[in-house]
């Protein structure tokens, strides 16, 4: 009985930690959906680029060896700017064509970005320079300080996004643009500028999620972001796409469900649990994909 409780609590802890990382990715995806109204399949590549950029900046290949936190911040800023560039080159020219052409374009962009990276760095697995740590345990459950740090960074990011959306003019204009873009323009908001800033935040959040994922689940390959995209989609749709607070809750549910499934059903199907949630949402809660406002 004690062993069962210990294992269950431990699984919940892992689920919460993974859920917190998913939530960073899901919030980034859902914010960009809120103002652009299309599902960006290239979003996974922002995770991948974030992880690889942090890797290069912190010791592998560029002749730099920044501390990982500094490398992460630089990677988030660079990938954020890269996201703005990607949107201007590929998505802005199509922005008045409706969601379907944009969605299909984003699949193409995902291939371009993934194979460009593969061509540059190869397919071999890489690992961030993180130390191996012993778990700190209380009553037989616990986690490593590194995983605890990942959790805290993810939670801090959620709080930051909450403050941004609720208390800053940029956040309010993002929500206004999401809620009613026509009126946002009528009210004097530079909606194109708002969309560009949202792309920056979205891609930056994606990059951060990529680094956090790579810290939790090293090693990784150029397909890491695309593979994790299904998990992020599940969380985003569960929360109702376009709703950041929904995405946060959806992410925690998906993270916990994946870890419970892995522990008690089979570790072979970790991704399949997320996929099952995704299918379940589409079948039973189609309102979840009907969209919403931030």
């Amino acid at each position, binding site marked *: 009985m004690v062993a069962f409780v210990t294992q269950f609590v431990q699984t919940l802890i892992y689920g919460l930690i993974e859920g917190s990382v998913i939530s960073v990715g899901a919030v980034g995806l859902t914010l960009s959906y809120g103002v652009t109204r299309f599902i960006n399949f290239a979003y996974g590549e922002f995770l991948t680029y974030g992880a690889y950029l942090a890797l290069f900046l912190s010791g592998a290949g560029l002749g730099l060896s920044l501390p990982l936190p500094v490398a992460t911040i630089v990677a988030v800023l660079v990938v954020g700017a890269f996201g703005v560039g990607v949107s201007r080159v590929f998505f802005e020219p199509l922005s008045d064509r409706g969601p379907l052409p944009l969605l299909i374009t984003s699949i193409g962009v995902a291939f371009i970005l993934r194979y460009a990276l593969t061509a540059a760095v190869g397919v071999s697995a890489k690992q961030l320079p993180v130390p191996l740590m012993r778990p700190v345990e209380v009553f037989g459950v616990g986690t490593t300080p590194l995983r605890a740090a990942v959790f805290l960074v993810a939670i801090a990011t959620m709080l930051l996004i909450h403050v941004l959306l609720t208390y800053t*003019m940029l956040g*309010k*204009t993002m929500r206004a643009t999401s809620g009613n873009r*026509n009126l946002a323009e*009528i*009210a*004097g908001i530079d909606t194109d500028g708002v969309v560009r800033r949202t792309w920056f935040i979205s891609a930056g959040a994606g990059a951060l999620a990529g680094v956090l994922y790579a810290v939790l689940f090293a090693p990784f390959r150029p397909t890491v972001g695309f593979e994790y995209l299904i998990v992020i989609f599940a969380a985003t749709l569960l929360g109702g796409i376009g709703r950041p607070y929904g995405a946060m809750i959806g992410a925690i549910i998906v993270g916990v469900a994946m870890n419970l499934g892995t522990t008690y059903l089979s570790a072979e199907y970790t991704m399949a649990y997320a996929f099952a949630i995704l299918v379940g949402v589409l079948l039973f809660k189609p309102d979840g994909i009907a969209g919403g406002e931030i």
Partner: protein
Amino acid sequence: MHNADLETVPEIDDALFSARGIETGYGELQVLYGVDVDVRDDEIVLVFGPNGAGKSTLMKALYGRLPLWEGTTEIGGTDLSEVRSNRMIEHGVGFVPQTDNVFPNLTVSENLDIGAIHTEDPASRRAELFELFPRLEERLEQTAETLSGGERQMLAMARALMPDPDLLFIDEPSAGLAPQLIERTFEHIARIRDDGTAVLMIEQNVNAALSVADRGYVLDMGENRFEADAETIRESERIRDLYLGK
């Protein structure tokens, strides 16, 4: 298209806002054929006419939501013809659309914050608008989607009035409102004028609108048909027969 017995629409010399020879439409379809409208700085001007006359198209064109094919708009001598709608407020022009005129996911307070982007002293402006719309002050933290139709209309006007514009365009202010709210809405519009903001509105409910309007234009088939002060329009049998119903 012109009927010989129709009065020509005069040009007003002391107008705050002038639109001259407005032609526009959608794609290949021309809707407006040279429409003129003037608004003085202390006036409520009503544009009315039958369905399909081009009233809503006119308002979109004047506010920069549709490009002008021909014609010019100006306010206080500044050319607005090429100004996009998200820069109109910087020229002192606000707009209350007929539908979807609030941010449903934002609170009342946040809707006013959005209106205040181009406002120098938002706090005192809020206080002034709460005198006009006390109901909004009671609803500050409610999201706009939870408001009643009348409250939404008040919020839409308050949002547009936050920057204290010189001129406010209002598209069908009484549409969808319960009869007892319609009179109050036009009272609000009269007070907006009295507080120093000129108003150009289009409205189907012409009799109610004429109770506060100073002047009116009849638009039909995308052209000006008639212009007169409100009293003349109210008393014109021809206008009554053609456009107001019996």
